[in-house]
């Protein structure tokens, strides 16, 4: 991912409405997990990051599930990080 695109994504992850997401997504990005992802996986991460805060948080805490297997797999990776 190009630097500017990555930095925009990072900003949208480190400045969320909910503290819980700030911490979780910052940890994933700054811990170097994102760089290890394939292009498809990075795209899945971007799609998750675009979600509303509560919807994403419900996925990350297992309160909700998502049918899309790409996104579900990415949720699992973020939870493990």
């Amino acid at each position, binding site marked *: 991912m190009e630097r500017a695109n990555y930095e925009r994504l990072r900003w949208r992850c480190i400045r969320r*409405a909910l503290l819980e997401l700030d911490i979780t997504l910052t940890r994933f990005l700054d811990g170097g997990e994102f760089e290890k992802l394939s292009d498809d996986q990075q795209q899945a991460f971007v799609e998750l990051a675009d979600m509303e805060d509560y919807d994403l948080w419900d996925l990350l805490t297992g309160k909700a599930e998502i049918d899309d297997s790409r996104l579900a797999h990415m949720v699992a990776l973020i939870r493990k990080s």
Partner: protein
Amino acid sequence: MSIPVLKFDAVIVGAGGAGLRSAIQLSEAGLKTAVLSKVFPTRSHTVAAQGGVAASLGNSEEDHWTWHMYDTVKGSDWLGDQDAIEFMCKKANEVVVELEHYGMPFDRTDDGKIYQRPFGGHMSNFGEKPVRRSCAAADRTGHAMLHAMYQRNVKANTQFFVEWMALDLIRDEEGHVLGVTAMEMETGQIVIFHARATIFATGGAGRIFYSSTNAFINTGDGLGMAARAGIPLEDMEFWQFHPTGVAGAGVLITEGVRGEGGILRNSSKERFMERYAPNAKDLASRDVVSRAMATEIKEGRGCGVNKDYVLLDITHLDPATIMKRLPGIHEIGLQFAGVDCLKEPLPVVPTCHYQMGGIPTHYSGRVVAPKNGDVNSVVPGFYAGGECACASVHGANRLGTNSLLDLLVFGKSAGDSAVEDLKAGRAHRELPKDVADKTLARISALDNRKGGANVHETRLAMQRTMQDHAGVFRFGDMLKQGVEKILEVEKAARQLEIKDKSMAWNTARTEALEMENLIEVAKATMISAEARKESRGAHVRDDAPDTAEFPNGRNDKEWLKHTLFSPVDNSISYKPVNMQPLTVEAVALKTRSY
């Protein structure tokens, strides 16, 4: 260097609840209105407000705004201005019904009215018994509110500048406010927003503390800009804390954990609450538990390398009970403390939640500051609402559900006042010749400095200083040391260095600029807290204890007054509390007890 100038009737900084509510008033009045936000509006921290919004609709049982006013004055420990509190409580029904008309999906009673539920501190008949006053949309009230107001703004043609950061307030020699300088994050371009009215709705600054429930975005940008423009900050010593946040993360752990049998322990594994509250123990009230935790930490019985937290132990409880009765706690422990709470205790610490002080405003939303002997002289062209402002309705402590009400009432009020002033003929004033010089100098210094201070380390030093020296329970000696320490941190904050010099999406630069705002708030808080030698509301000092002469440590003879911190010379002055409501009798002083 030529800086682009964008001309608007009004510029609003911040697109949370207060900013969006202000913008509706201005845009619907036909005024050309810009709203600047660091994030997309529905990502503002208002989203995190779950409890509801207070209004004495009386849908579920009898209620009256005067009862709400009484509760708010009492909650404020009599530091709230009674004219502003009357204004807010009286306006509550109107702003809630408006919100309903904007499409807010409030919970409903069987007969279709807005459902109301009880909330701590809200009582009927002047403190007699709890009343159902909170209007909510499930547990997503703030979220639903932002969506409804954002849509309304889109309809009214409000112009949003998303992912823009306002940098400095523009004032001319006579003190009039003429807009802001701002940075577009995508390009790094600096732009002047030249406006006839400038409204700040930038939220709180809870990130000055090491442990905070506030999202990372709450960096006090409005307060920093106001301070740099020479405007004093009011009552900054008053911050609301919650006893149990995950140490280091700030994520809240519900009081239900102690209700189910959770025990607080110090570094010796001692159940220390037995010493502080022999009967209630771990179930004592929030303030008692918070003070006990702070005392254990101060006296060296905290845990961890820095001995700066205590432990919340539920390992003796049946795992099945924990998973059934406390859903989420296991996940929170794993995610934010790296602890399996079924096997190990959780690290917890009293955690900052809400800022009661802020930019001084009249209840009309107009910013006021001392000038020519008048402590409440209006700063022409400048308005503020929501958590960044101090009207003052929360005084020394805020009641739950009054924060969403504050941002609706004073967001609207600031918007209305701006419309009134503009329609009365306020024109665009000429921009000063050096309009963007200070902003450009700050950016240039960041880009060119070598051997300066690291942003992350400086922020951490500030947060630890604030947590250790001006936390939930305060000690005279610690506050004195805290002032010295925060002034040292300030020196570093004035010498920040960033490695990334790129223009587009330079988040390092943005975080450095946020840090320059945070330090203004931290300094104001520490110096104001050291100066106030009594206990009142959320400001509780070890050396101002509960005595017969001064119940709860409150000393009305000397301290029934608002603090004004002057950022120009770090000095403190005071102004009287307004004890005169607009139309009803004053709520007379008495000891605050529940």
